[in-house]
């Protein structure tokens, strides 16, 4: 008896934890990490759904999410390095020049 509903609830909890992390932490690295958590939780939900319907599509989508997360992280971290090079700080609140 596979835990479908519980699996989805776990995915939801992980997702909300990721949201909290994005909103609370000011360090850019922590924000990116929280985004990874959110992506992972979404992937978990997909896989659970695929299992429920007895189809491989859930896992296929998880694969795509994984590929996307990898691309996003590589570019994002390059940007973080660039940001640190320019502003000597990783505080997102301090980097608010697009104000107005």
């Amino acid at each position: 008896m596979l835990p479908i509903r519980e699996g989805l609830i776990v995915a939801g909890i992980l997702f909300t934890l990721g949201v909290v992390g994005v909103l609370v932490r000011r360090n850019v690295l922590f924000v990116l990490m929280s985004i990874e958590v959110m992506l992972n939780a979404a992937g978990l939900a997909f896989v659970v759904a695929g299992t429920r319907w007895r189809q491989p599509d859930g896992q296929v989508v998880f694969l795509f999410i994984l590929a996307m997360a990898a691309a996003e992280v590589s570019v994002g971290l390059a940007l973080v390095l660039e940001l640190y090079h320019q502003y000597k700080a990783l505080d997102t609140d301090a980097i608010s020049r697009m104000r107005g």
Partner: protein
Amino acid sequence: MLQLLWLIPAIPFAGALLLMVFGPRLRSKAVAAVGVGTIAASAIISLLVAAAFLSAPPAANAYTQTLWTWIDAGGFHPEIAFYLDALSLVMIVVVTFVSFLIHLYSTEFMRGDEGYSRFFAYMNLFVASMVTLLLADNLLLLYLGWEGVGLCSYLLIGFWYQDPANGRAGQKAFIVTRVGDTAMAVGLFLLFHSLGTLRIQDLMHAAQNHWAAGSPYAIAAAALLLGGAVGKSAQLPLQTWLPDAMAGPTPTSALIHAATMVTAGVYLIARTHVLFELAPPIQFAVAVVGAATLLLAGFSALTQSDLKRVLAYSTVSQIGYMFLALGVGAWGAAIFHFMTHAFFKALLFLAAGIVIEALHHEHDIFRMGGLRKELPVAFWTFLIGGCALAGLPLITAGFYSKDLILWSAANSRAGSAGLWGVGIAGVVLTSLYTFRLIFVVFFGQASTPVSRRPGAAMLIPAYVLAFLSIVGGFDKAPFAAFMATALPALPELSRGITEAMSSAAAGAAFLAGILIAWYVYLRNPAASRSLVANPAGRLLHRFWFADWGMDWLYDRLFVRPVVWMAAANKGDVIDSIYDGLARAAALCYRVLSLTETGKLRWYAAWIAGGSVVMVAIVVFL
């Protein structure tokens, strides 16, 4: 020959257009030729038409010439049509002929003025509008002419527009007459609504058939038309504009504000006499207005020091006589007085123009003097005109016409001895102020030297008008017979005042006026000063000088509240609604731009919050 009728207004109108478009490019001789030529042609044609009309009168003594249908909307189709009967014939002959003389005069008077072509354009347009007014077959076309003359009056009063005072005088004239014009427009609406047509002859028949004497509709319509006439003819209470209108050039004052435009009101009442006969209270009001105005203006004229203002008040007073005649039912007498008044008033203004030009634009009579020897032409013409105005017995036209009015006032069913008495008092006043003017200007010591003598163009019209002022009254009987073909006769009621008595009284009044003027101004100049020196005299003098305080009254009553309201609404209440919309949008913009903090976490928070709300809506609603 009668088919040439339409040319009488058309030729001056074409002349006006020509001068407006090409005027600045033409040489002044060409401008004068066009300006005077069109009016000469108009005058000649009107004389020919008159000859044809008199020799072979058309059926029912009226001739209608329809040009085209002007408006065709529902049941309303006024036409451009001209109606010729005794009334309009007399008026157009007088108007075109006097206009021709004045145009000739102005070729020399206005020489050297940089608005030469503009002047003749406006004057031609004026004559075209006036003739349209007089010949109009329906009240709408009459109103067109009415407005046209009002426009030209405004343009010509403010002719020398570089001086803002002239513009203000023009505005005052236009606005005050506008009050009357609005009343007249409402009257036209009422007439059309009740009787379904504006063609004057049909209107008169319909009114007689549908409205009983004293019906409220008739009273309302007549009262509204009276309002219009009062405005245009500068009678009480709308007479305040005419003295200020003297800011315009003297030929304008002669033509518009003495001989022609100001008599449009008289014409209107005479033309719609059926309505006034159906509304006896209003007809009585006409007489009362005329009587009151002739006295009021007479007193005001006694105190004026500007030469043209005296003549302006004199015009107001004489039109009061015409209104008095209309009010007692002496329609023909009013037109007769119009004709003689046109002659001698135009003459007086032309002579005044000669004096003013000669003294290099001096208007104050107390700075003139002793011009009897310097300007003999001006003296004799002014004297003839003045005697005609005051009513020198037997040899002046003015005597006959004024005498007829006085006798009609006494012997009409609608008249009274009181009105006759007022008329006689008016004769005293008229004689008094006229000879005051003559004695002060032409007798005594010379004050200002003469710099310019008049030329032929200014003298010939003066001579012609002087001649007419003398002989114009001798045709009283044939004139009355002719007018009877178009206007009803006087409903007579003898009150014991015979014609001989009335003439004698008028002659006595005339002499009384001259004697008082001679005593106060020639024999004993100190007397005039002592009259003004005592407090009551000074008060009266100031009161009459300010036109019985009416200007002051209107200023307090109307002008100041309107100006105050305009100033209070400077922020424009209506506009601020639209402005408020724009300001509200700007406010929203400023509020929303506060959310652009540039902080990542805030944006993420808004996204999270938004998604929470959206999910809630989808799930729970």
